[in-house]
């Protein structure tokens, strides 16, 4: 399994920080993604690489219901968001767009920014150094939606 670089974010990172209001009415996610986390780190979109992960503290994604927030992270190649806890709308939106979200209480306090972790998404576990971290399991329905790659695929698959 390939290793993922870690980007760390503090408590209560709101969706305005992930993607600011002024970019939401741009025509599509591709045009928006360059502004991801602009207020916190204007260079983030340039620095991030396919397969990186976000590791956050409590209440990641609080605030607005803008689905553009998980969508720009996915479009930038973020493999998963791992947080101590998530705000509910972001959590649900992430699964709906097929962005894996993992609840893990311990990893944030152990890992440093730009260090590497190994993710096993099918097991819901993370390896960092010689430690293994087990993440909270999703309810079955949500896991199914995620496995299908999001809610639209889930819907299309259920159509006759």
């Amino acid at each position, binding site marked *: 399994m390939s290793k993922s670089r870690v980007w760390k974010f503090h408590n209560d990172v709101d969706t305005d920080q992930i993607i600011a209001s002024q970019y939401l009415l741009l025509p599509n996610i591709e045009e928006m993604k360059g502004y991801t986390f602009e207020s916190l780190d204007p260079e983030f979109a340039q620095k991030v690489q396919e397969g990186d992960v976000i590791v956050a503290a409590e209440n990641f994604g609080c605030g*607005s219901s803008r*689905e553009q927030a998980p969508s720009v992270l996915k479009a930038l190649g973020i493999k998963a968001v791992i947080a101590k806890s998530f705000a509910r709308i972001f959590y649900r939106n992430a699964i*709906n767009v097929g962005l894996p979200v993992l609840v893990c209480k311990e990893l944030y306090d152990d890992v440093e920014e730009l260090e590497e972790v190994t993710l096993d998404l099918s097991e819901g576990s993370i390896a960092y150094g010689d430690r293994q971290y087990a993440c909270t399991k999703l309810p079955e329905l949500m896991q199914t939606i995620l496995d299908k790659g999001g809610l639209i695929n889930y819907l299309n698959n259920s159509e006759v």
Partner: protein
Amino acid sequence: MGMTIGEKIIAKAAGVKSVKPGDIHTVTLDRMMSNDGTTHLTIDMYYNQLKNPRIADKDKIVFIMDHNVPAENPKTAEAHKKMRNFAREQGIKLYEGQGVCHQIMMEDYVCPGELIFGADSHTCAYGALGAFGTGVGCTDLLYGIVTGQSWVLVPETIRFNLTGKLPKGVYPRDLILTIIGDIGANGANYKIMEFAGEGAHNLSINDRIVLCNLCVEAGAKTGIVEPDDKVIEYVKSRGRNVEHMFISDDDAVYEKVYNYDLSKIQPVVARPDFVDDVIPLKDLGRVKIDQAFLGSCNNGRIDELRVAANLLKGKKVKEDVRFLVAPASNEVYLQALEEGIMDTLMEAGAQIMNANCSVCWGSCQGVIGENEVLVSTGTRNFKGRAGHPSSKVYLASAETVTRAAITGYIESQEEM
């Protein structure tokens, strides 16, 4: 085992006798609302990603343009065009420039007992009328549009027993900010916040909207005030029928119970950049401002405009301060015109904007510059929420905001 109001609404929508927290149910949605913040993306998915694009029931869908209205640049204009054309083609009711989506929903649609999904986080406001409103993303909304259904993980309920009445000069805005400060920005994450007790019943419908609308700032899935005769009166006065008035059972199970004596609440302010960084106004010290904003789905109704007009009568907005006012809807705007409120505000030097989300969401109008300070009746004070990332937003009541517009400082009455 008894059920709470929210559990009863979910049970009705799921067509089952009872539900309990942690259950997942397929529900039929009573109504869906989408605004111009995400509808262009919903429409793109509808046309480009669905195997079998269709609309389950167009009469349950409402489109409302309120976030960037009127359009401020050609790209927004294109997004609006897409929304307008889709609504026309599909026969979906569209409101454009009539007001903030949640205020329109209150005025024209929400009924007690309904389960409503809105592609906007402040959809939780609908609990003011005993409905279950919750914010979702545009993919969830699209699934609802196509199938008429969705799924819900039944949340636990937190009960807030309210007693007494708010003192003069203290508003429901101070009450809900106090509660958010007490329980924190994720204090009710994935929970229902239920308000009941004689203190809740003392509140007007306007005040209940203020209360429920901000519940998402504590992470809640929704906020609901126990409905009563005031709800029936309001809904009937708007020409709608009341079919389901759900009250929690005596043996309903709550995750937590809080008690608030409204007579003890005092004016508060939420400091930048977190809605739960709440302190009493008297402990804030004087904070110099550049701009004051009165408006939003939380605090732009006739009650708040009256507060501002009463304070501004015969006074002027401070010379180096901009005071921006955006009524929550055209109906509110017309009422304010009739009452002479707009004359008072304009004579004092306020700038009156069209009814829309305006400064509250920092994209379209009244955006603030580097290091500027805004005091606002809006919903959020996140970093850069109203403009430049270095700018600061303080949240307060209509009275505190208007006083700051007059003096140029956020300050308590004692300091003045």
